[in-house]
């Protein structure tokens, strides 16, 4: 068994019993069930859940991820004092955080659809929602780990993750609107599409919207994305870009982990 898998297994054992992770799964389950309970159709439930996913998944992954890294600092030191390479140790520690969070989301958000036999939603939309939430969570967890490894002060680190969350979920849309309003005489499609790739939250939104015919309801870039790329190309681009948004901060964090003093 590799070092990474040993450390991953301990992370899974720890976080599978963590009440915040269990609560995270339970919250999505309760919200999903409530949406069905109040008479929502499958598509309506996916849309409502998407709005919650786009706010809650980044916040939990960023803040919980950073707090987890700070809390595990002494444990990490103990592991680093063992005869193990740092690279493998980091892979195990990251996956030990990201996989339980992804598992909690998938169970919490997916179970209501399972109980309601899909709720009449198009399977592609449900899969897109689950993939988007999982990818967004992995991406934000990687960003959180990178922030925590570059910022020794715990309060400052958590503050930065909250700032990143605010920027991704609120300020970004405000910036898009400001740009559209200011440069409405200019052809903005291409710059806006590039800007969309610069935000994992918008990518996750785009990924789901390409499976539903409601893009006009979901913001300027979502509509633009759907119109420009169509369903298949949009899905491939969004998934690839979300993966890149996980790999890039993971690589930055791994590099920092290998080189930093503990």
């Amino acid at each position, binding site marked *: *068994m590799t070092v990474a898998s040993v450390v991953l297994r301990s992370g899974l054992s*720890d976080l599978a019993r963590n009440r915040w992770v269990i609560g995270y799964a339970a919250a999505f389950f309760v919200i999903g069930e409530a949406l069905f309970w109040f008479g929502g159709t499958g598509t309506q439930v996916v849309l409502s859940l998407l709005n919650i996913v786009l706010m809650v998944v980044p916040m939990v992954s960023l803040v919980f991820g950073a707090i987890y890294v700070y809390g595990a600092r002494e444990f990490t030191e103990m592991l*680093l004092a*063992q005869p193990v390479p740092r690279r493998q140790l980091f892979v195990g520690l990251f996956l030990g955080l990201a996989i339980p969070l992804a598992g909690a989301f998938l169970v919490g958000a997916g179970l209501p659809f399972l109980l309601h036999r899909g709720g009449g939603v198009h399977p592609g939309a449900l899969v897109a929602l689950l993939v988007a939430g999982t990818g967004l969570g992995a991406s934000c967890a990687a960003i959180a780990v990178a922030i925590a490894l570059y910022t020794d002060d715990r309060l400052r680190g958590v503050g930065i993750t909250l700032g990143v969350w605010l920027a991704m979920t609120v300020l970004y849309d405000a910036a898009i609107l400001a740009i559209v309003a200011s440069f409405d005489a200019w052809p903005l499609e291409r710059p806006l599409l590039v800007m969309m790739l610069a935000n994992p939250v918008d990518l996750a939104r785009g990924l789901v919207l390409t499976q539903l015919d409601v893009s006009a309801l979901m913001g300027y870039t979502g509509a633009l994305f759907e119109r420009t790329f169509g369903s298949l190309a949009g899905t491939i681009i969004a998934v690839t870009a979300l993966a890149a948004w996980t790999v890039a901060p993971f690589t930055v964090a791994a590099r920092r982990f290998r080189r930093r003093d503990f």
Partner: protein
Amino acid sequence: MISFQGIRKAFGARQVLDDVSLDVGPGRVTALIGPNGSGKTTLIKILLGLARQDAGLVRMNGVDLDAAGAYRSAVGYMPQSAKFPDHLRVREVFELVTALRPGAPRDEELIEAFSLTADWDRPVGTLSGGTRQKVNAAIAFLFQPSVLVLDEPTAGLDPIAAGVLRERIHRDRERGRTVIVTSHVLSELEELAQDIAFLCEGRLRFVGSTPELLARTGAAHVEPAIAVLMRESRRHDQPLATADAVPTPEAA
């Protein structure tokens, strides 16, 4: 034999270790002593590969420490405070460190001496600080390491457990193991250590055996002797002795 040669380390503008050279011999317990912020923990972390020196060399048995960390299979480390993931059970913590050192011989004496099997299935987060420290100690000694690095080993332990641990350190020294220990309980170090290395503001101010320290300062015990060194260090800001002046530690 562990050899630190010309170790320098700075965090930003602050020079934490300034040209520290120290030989730690087998079959000896060497106490690292110094006020808070003197560089003791940084020196230990450099030995363990947790921090990297800006300049200088660390050698174990004549071989430079490798970045991959394979040499750490010979090292047991007991940090000052033990903090394991709260929801892991005691059994799982031991399974984890055992899986990280496949094939290493195990010595479960401290697990039994501390009665840790009674807490085997309890989550670590529910243990008292003292019991967590016992887990920490048992892990440090678990794989029969030839080098033991113990940072405040008896802090948080009850008197019986502290006695068990001190007895174990004595026996490991007699077996020829190399022990580096830090503690603020100087009377305890007087009992445990044969050699004293005194660090102040990142510089090694004294290295030598306990009798040499007492003779050098004219004190009857280690505690007042260290107080003398601290006063002299502050007054003169000059090294009182260097590693060159220290006799080679004898093998047990």
